[in-house]
C-alpha cells in the first residue's frame, strides 16, 4: 500500500490548528456530519489529544440522513467512546419560503446550529470543510468569526498569516474553526486508506452507483461509478472532472444559492 508521505505535512498542520483551538477557544465543540471529511478530522483529534476527544461531537440532525449513516454513527460512538450530542433541526415549514426548495431544506441545519449556539453558548465550533469542495469555501479563513446568529461577513474577513489566528473575540461572536481547509477530496481518501479510518459504506459503489458526497436523502443523489474499494475511489478521483458536490441539489438551485446559504451561517 502506498504510504503517501506528503500527507504527514497536512496532518501536522491540522493537529497544530486543533491544539491552537483547544488552547485558545472555550467552550469548544465540533460538528460531526458523519461523512468522510469530519470522520477523518475526528481521527486527527484523537491523534492531537493522545486518544482522547476532549470536546463534544455534535450532529445537526434533520432525521433525513440515510439509514446507513445512523448505523455508522452509533457504531463509531461505541467503538471510539466519545461524547455525541444530537441537535434536532427545526422542520422545513419554519424556513424562509422564498428560498429555492433544496436550499430551503439545507437551511434547516443552519437554524439547528443557530439554536445550539444560542442555547449552549459555544465560543468555537470546529467544522470539517475543505477549500477544494466549493468556491465559496475556498475563500474561508481557518479561524472565521461569526456573529452569534451565525452571519458570515465574507467581504471583510480578518487577515490571517503565519499560523497566527484571530482567537479573541468580543462577546456575542463565535468562531468557526476549519482544521482541514487545506486538504483535498483525494487527500482525505488517501489518508482514510492509509490510516484505516472507518467510513460509511455508501461511498462505495453498489450496482454502478455510489455517493461521492453524503447529505440528506431528499437532496443528495449518488453518482455513476464502479469504484467499490478505497483504492478504486482514489483511482477514479485522480482522473475525474466531475465536481465533488454535483450530487448536492442545494448548490445548484441558482447561481448564488450556496453564497446565500453560507452568508446566513450554513457550513
Amino acid at each position, binding site marked *: 500500500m502506498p504510504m503517501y508521505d506528503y500527507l504527514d505535512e497536512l496532518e501536522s498542520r491540522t493537529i497544530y490548528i486543533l491544539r491552537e483551538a483547544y488552547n485558545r477557544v472555550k467552550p469548544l465543540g465540533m460538528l460531526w456530519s458523519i461523512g468522510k471529511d469530519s470522520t477523518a478530522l475526528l481521527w486527527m483529534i484523537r491523534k492531537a*489529544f493522545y486518544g482522547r476527544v476532549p470536546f463534544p461531537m455534535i450532529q445537526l440532525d434533520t432525521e433525513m440522513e440515510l439509514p446507513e449513516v445512523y448505523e455508522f454513527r452509533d457504531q463509531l460512538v461505541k467503538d471510539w467512546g466519545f461524547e455525541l450530542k444530537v441537535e434536532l433541526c427545526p422542520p422545513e415549514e419554519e424556513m424562509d419560503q422564498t428560498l429555492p426548495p433544496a436550499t430551503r431544506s439545507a437551511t434547516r441545519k443552519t437554524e439547528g446550529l443557530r439554536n445550539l449556539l444560542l442555547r449552549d453558548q459555544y465560543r468555537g465550533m470546529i467544522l470539517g470543510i475543505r477549500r477544494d469542495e466549493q468556491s465559496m469555501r475556498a475563500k474561508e479563513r481557518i479561524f472565521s468569526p461569526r456573529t452569534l446568529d451565525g452571519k458570515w461577513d465574507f467581504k471583510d474577513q480578518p487577515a490571517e498569516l*503565519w499560523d497566527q489566528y484571530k482567537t479573541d473575540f468580543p462577546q456575542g461572536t463565535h468562531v468557526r474553526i476549519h482544521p482541514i481547509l487545506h486538504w483535498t477530496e483525494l487527500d482525505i481518501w488517501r489518508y482514510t486508506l492509509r490510516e484505516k479510518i472507518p467510513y460509511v459504506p455508501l461511498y462505495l459503489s453498489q450496482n454502478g452507483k455510489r455517493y461521492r458526497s453524503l447529505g440528506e436523502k431528499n437532496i443528495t443523489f449518488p453518482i455513476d461509478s464502479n469504484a467499490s474499494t478505497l483504492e478504486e475511489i482514489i483511482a477514479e478521483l485522480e482522473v475525474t472532472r466531475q465536481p465533488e458536490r454535483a450530487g448536492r441539489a442545494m448548490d445548484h438551485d441558482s447561481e448564488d444559492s450556496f453564497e446565500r446559504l453560507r452568508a446566513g451561517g450554513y457550513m
Partner: protein
Amino acid sequence: MTSKNLTQLNMVIVGHVDHGKSTLIGRLLYDTDSLPEGKVEELKAISEKRGMDIEWSFVLDAFQAERDQAVTIDTTQIWFKTEKRNYVIIDAPGHREFLKNMISGAAAADAAILVVDADEGVQEQTKRHAYLLHLLGIQQVGVVINKMDLVGHKKERYDEVSQEVVDYLAHLGITARFIVPISARHGDNIASIAEKTMPWYDGETVLSNLDKLQIQPPLVDRPMRFMVQDVYRYKGDERRIIVGRVESGILNKGDKLLFSPSNLEATVVSLEKWNSEKEITYAKAGESMGFTLDKPIFVERGHIASTHDNPPMLTRVFAANIFWIAHHELKEGMLLTAKFGTCSWPVMVQSINKVINTDDLQNENQKQVKRNEMAEVVLRSSEMMALYSYVNNPRTGRLVLFDKYDVVGGGIIDMAKFADQRNVSKAADLYSVEHLLRRENREWRNGHKGAVIWLTGLSGSGKSSVAMEVEKLLFNQEKQVYVLDGDNVRNGLNRDLGFSDEDRSENIRRIGEVAALMADAGMIVITAFISPFKEDRMRARAAAGQSFHEVYIEADLATCEQRDPKGLYQKAREGKIKEFTGISSPYEAPDNPEIVVDTQHHSLEECAQQVLTYVNDVTKV
C-alpha cells in the same frame, strides 16, 4: 499508484487591480485541463448574463459581488496539476482596499507571479505588492507582462515594461526567476508558445517556467526550535506531555533542551505520538509533536525549546520591518500585542524610525504609519522575549501585531542592532537599578534567608491555622515573616478577579509573584491558599526559584468536610457554590512536596512545630 510527485507548490498571483490576475489563473486551469466538467459552459452562461465574452476570472471570483463588480475581493485557492507536480494557486486581490486579503493569501506561498499590464506598465499596487513579497520573505518571483494583445504584441513595449519591473525588484534584492510576455485572455505563451503573435519571444512558456520553481523545504538545516503550544496531563496517565511544533532543525530523543525565556534545562525522555507503531526517535522541522522530560521543570505555552549551545536571543527591545493594515494610524507610544509562534507579548511602539514610500522606496520623515503603509519600528516589552532575526530563521523571525481583537500588522524581526541579554542574569539586571543592596546584604542583617513557604491543601485542612501559628512563632524568634492569605489578597491585589478557572489561575500567579518579591526582599512569606492545580504551583515555584518550599497540608476530604469552619462545604453540597475544590472541582495533590504535614492525626501545635523546624533549617544563613 504512479510514482508521480504528490507534493504541491503554493503559488500566489499578485499585481495591480485589473492587470489580469484572475484571468491568468482561469486560463492556467483551462490549459491544464483542470476545470471540472461543465465549468466552461457555466462560465459562458454567467458571462453572457453580464454581457461579456467568456470571463475566465469568474472561475475564482465566486462571490456574486465579485462577479458583478468584476473585482476580486478575497483571496482564494484552487488546485491544478502539470505533468511534473500539483499546484495550489492563491489568487490575491489587487485592489488597494483589500490589501489585508492579499497578505493573507501571499503569506502562505512558496513562490509568486507578479502580473503587470503591458499597456499600463508598473502601477502603485505593482510596487506595493512587490514590496510585500519582499517583506513576507518570498524569494521566488516570476513576472508576466500581460495583455500583450493591447499593445500590438510589440517587443519594444515589452522590453520597456520588463526593464521597469526588473529595476524595481532589484532594489528589493529580488531577481525575477522569469519574465514572460503573455496574453492571458487568448492563452498566448501560457501553455504553448505564441509563434504567430510574438515570434520574437525566445523564452519558455509560463507553465514550463513554473515547473522549475522549488517548493520551500522545511528548515531542517537551521538550529532546533520547538514552540510550546500546550502541556497535556490526563487522568490515570503519568505522562506530562509538552506539545507543539518543531519550527526548525531536528528534535531528538535524549536531547538536552534549554527553554527560553525561563532558562531552565531538561532532557527529552520520549517523543510522543498517538497510535504510532514504533518508538519515535526524532522529529523534523514542520512536525507537530509531543515529548516528556526527565525533570518536572516549569514549562508553559509560549516557551521556546532549543539546544544549549544555539539558543534564540533574549531581549526586551527589537526592531521590525512591518506592514500596517488597520484603519487607524500607528503612532509612537501605542500599546499592541506582538505574537510569533505561540508567544504573545504586550509591546509599546518605542519609535517609528522610517516610513517607506513604496513608490520610490525613499524614506518618509513622518511619525505615524497609515493604513497599507510599511515602516521600520522599534518595539519594547517589559518582559524578556526570546527572538531571532528573520535572516537567521524565517520561521521564528516574523511577527504579527494585534490591537485588542484584530490583526493590525505584521513583519520581520531585525536584531542586528541589539545585543543578546541572556547572560545578563535577572539578578544582575536588578543590581543595575539598585546598585548597593544585594539579597545577601538583607539576609545578613535579618539573620535569615528569605523564603516562600507555600502551603497547599483542601479547604478546612488547616492551612490558615498552621500559617498563623507558625507566623507567631517565627515573629517571636525576631524573624521577618508575613502570611499571605485570601483575606489580605482578595480585597486589594486581586480585587478584579472572580472564581472562573482563568481567574483562579491568575490569582495564584499574582500571589506567586508577590511572594517571590517579598522573599527577594528578605522576608519569610507563608502563603495559605488551596492552590489546587500543580501547574499553578509550578509557576509559583518558577517565580521564586530556590527559595520556594511546598508544604502539603494533608487531611482527607471527610475530615475537612466535617470541620467545615466557614460552612463552605455545606453550601457546595447544596450547589450554592460552583466549582468547589474537592466537591465539584479537582484537587491535585503535590507529587514531591518539601514536607507533608498531617493535620488529621496531629495537633495544631505539633504541626506548627514541624513547619517551624523546617523553616528554621532552610532559612539559616
